[in-house]
């Protein structure tokens, strides 16, 4: 705390000094806690720590319970099994896939045996938690960027048509071009990008405006959602419809290391780019006129940042389908907790997004069996919708004017 902001404990004093010796105060800010000083801010640290605890707790519940029951102690031991963690072959086998692992390590033989618990946890349950983390991160970052770019706190990949574009393409693939389902993630990303381009084109009229972007998003979203619903009538197999519904409501059921491998690289790219762009995001929040008069090429920056947001959204839609409300709510929560500085907002999203997603997935996976005793799961998108709706209602009642950021 003290190291972080020496400026605070003497605002007026430093002011006087600054006047007396113009040069001395100059070094003040860069020295302030070093390059990453802004990270060590009590509110942000609290949010990060709280979210981590939630993720770990929810993750532990996820790996402990299920068809093959084990105690929490056993689950812990399986997660931290040195046979995996300390053996790069097994570890890379999970993280990179078998082929890449063999290429990296040059290992040709059989992998050593693992305990049954370890296999269950590492093969089936842990990847699902990790996919939840990745999806939560992506959706939160995507929503945060979209909200700054449109200067509208109601914006999210969902509102801006990205999700419905991706959803439509997924349905088309499943119902009409069944043979292409191996490329589902790519096709989803393509659909999302195309939808966003259409939205941008509709909104464009000597430049775009936040309101026009949101309205265009609603228009495109409505049309695409109708097309989605229409497609159901052409499905000849109830199984296809069910799988389609799973995609369009968002689900982590059956996700595996393959999904982790698929989404993780894009996630890292999107997160790095959004952190790099956080200063631009901050400037966008000062309004178009100010940003322009400070020399920002508004449309170029907006378009590039939107591209990052589409990338993040597509990475998550490709592995989990359209999970509603996460991209809308997480940036909101984070902003209320850490303030509006986008450097902190993005970092906060990296923690709160996974916490919400992994927590919601506990409800999706185990909720039904606790409530009704039936051994069935619901798509996680239903849980996030059920949690997100009321939270948003609460916000709406509490805040006088919502929308403008």
């Amino acid at each position, binding site marked *: 705390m003290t190291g972080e902001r020496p*400026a*605070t404990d003497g*605002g*007026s004093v430093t*002011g006087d000094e*600054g*006047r*007396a*010796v*113009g*040069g001395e*105060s*100059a*070094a*003040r*800010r*860069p020295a302030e806690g070093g*390059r990453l000083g802004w990270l060590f801010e009590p509110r942000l640290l609290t949010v990060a720590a709280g979210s981590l605890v939630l993720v770990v707790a929810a993750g532990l519940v996820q790996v402990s319970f299920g068809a093959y029951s084990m105690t929490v102690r056993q689950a812990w031991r399986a997660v931290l099994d040195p046979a995996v963690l300390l053996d790069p072959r097994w570890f890379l086998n999970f993280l990179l896939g078998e082929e890449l692992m063999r290429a990296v390590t040059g290992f040709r033989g059989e992998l050593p045996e693992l305990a049954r618990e370890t296999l269950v946890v590492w093969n089936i349950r842990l990847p699902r938690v990790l996919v939840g983390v990745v999806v939560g991160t992506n959706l939160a970052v995507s929503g945060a960027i979209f909200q700054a770019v449109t200067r509208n706190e109601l914006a999210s990949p969902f509102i801006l048509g990205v999700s419905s574009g991706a959803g439509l393409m997924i349905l088309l693939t499943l119902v009409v071009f069944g043979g292409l389902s191996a490329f589902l993630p790519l096709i989803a990303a393509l659909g999302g990008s195309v939808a966003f381009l259409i939205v941008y084109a509709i909104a464009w*009229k*000597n430049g775009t405006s936040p309101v026009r972007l949101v309205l265009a998003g609603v228009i495109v979203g409505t049309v695409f959602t109708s097309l989605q619903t229409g497609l159901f009538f052409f499905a000849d197999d109830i199984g296809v419809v069910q799988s389609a519904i799973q995609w369009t409501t968002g689900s982590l059921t059956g996700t595996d290391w393959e999904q982790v491998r698929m989404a993780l690289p894009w996630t890292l790219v999107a997160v790095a780019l959004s952190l*790099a762009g956080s*200063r631009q995001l*901050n*400037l966008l*929040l*000062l*309004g178009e*006129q*100010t940003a*322009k*008069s*400070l*020399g*920002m*090429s508004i449309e170029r920056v907006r378009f590039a940042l939107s591209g990052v947001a589409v990338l993040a959204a597509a990475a998550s839609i490709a592995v989990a389908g359209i999970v509603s409300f996460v991209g809308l709510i997480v940036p909101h929560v984070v902003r209320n907790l850490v*303030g*509006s*500085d986008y450097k902190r907002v993005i970092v906060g999203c990296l923690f709160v997004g996974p916490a919400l997603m992994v927590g919601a997935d506990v409800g999706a996976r185990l909720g039904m069996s606790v409530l009704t005793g039936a051994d069935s799961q619901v798509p996680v998108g239903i849980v996030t919708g059920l949690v997100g709706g009321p939270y948003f209602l609460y916000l709406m009642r509490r805040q006088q004017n919502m929308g*403008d*950021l």
Partner: protein
Amino acid sequence: MSIERANATESDGSSGANEPAEPSESRAATDASDLDAKDLVLSYPTAPEPVIDGESIAAEPGAVTALVGPNGSGKSTLLKGLANQIDPEDGSVLLDGSDVHSMDTKALAKRLGLLSQESTSPDSITVEDLVYHGRYPHRGFFERTTAEDAKAVERAIDLAGCGHLRDREVGSLSGGQKQLAWIAMVLAQDTDVLLLDEPTTFLDLHHQMEVMEIIETLRDESEVTVVVVLHDIEQAARLADRVIALTDGEVRARGPPEAVVTEELLSEVFRVDADVVQTEDGPRVTPIRARHEK
């Protein structure tokens, strides 16, 4: 407050002279930047008629030029045109001879600053962070703040007299305090030309005076070329070296305040009968009644 500011600028001047970064001969020899608009035609996409139809104005280098006129006379539009915020349909704006429209946006922002009439910011940003945004054009994409940025920010905060506010959140400030913070931001931009759009409107008397004093300091102690849109004709007369009066997008009069602010002009441009008395501080205007004839 005013004494404080006087001190501030005094030491500012001295530290400026000691600075190795700013060669003193350039300071002595500087010709402050000039900003020339030639046959400017400005219009909005929504309006059929151009707001400004072929006007030429020149800002006096290193001095304060005030744009005055009734509501809807096109002063703010003209200012936005000068700042390259509106693309001109015809004509050009030249900053030291080069067309602002063809300049790189960041390069332009290093030399020309604009304070808009209404500025919005997130409530939770601190004044200091806001002022740091003024350094945007001076920084590369990945660059962090440098000692030079910090120095410019200190100078701007001192000059705007908002040092006591630096750690406050903008959302917690009064309208007048906010305006000081925004002025500090645009000062931190460290430009040769500064365009201010109605900086005193909606402020209480104290903060109006604060803003006027900042502009006076800029006029007296720096080479900055200032163009300011003002609602209050008396303020304009007191502050400006040159006054340009507009009605319906046309320049009606231009020149030193004593020549422009006259009873005839007030009746013609502002449609009021008024007494104008020339004093040491410039003309003093006493409005009597509004004129109703067309």
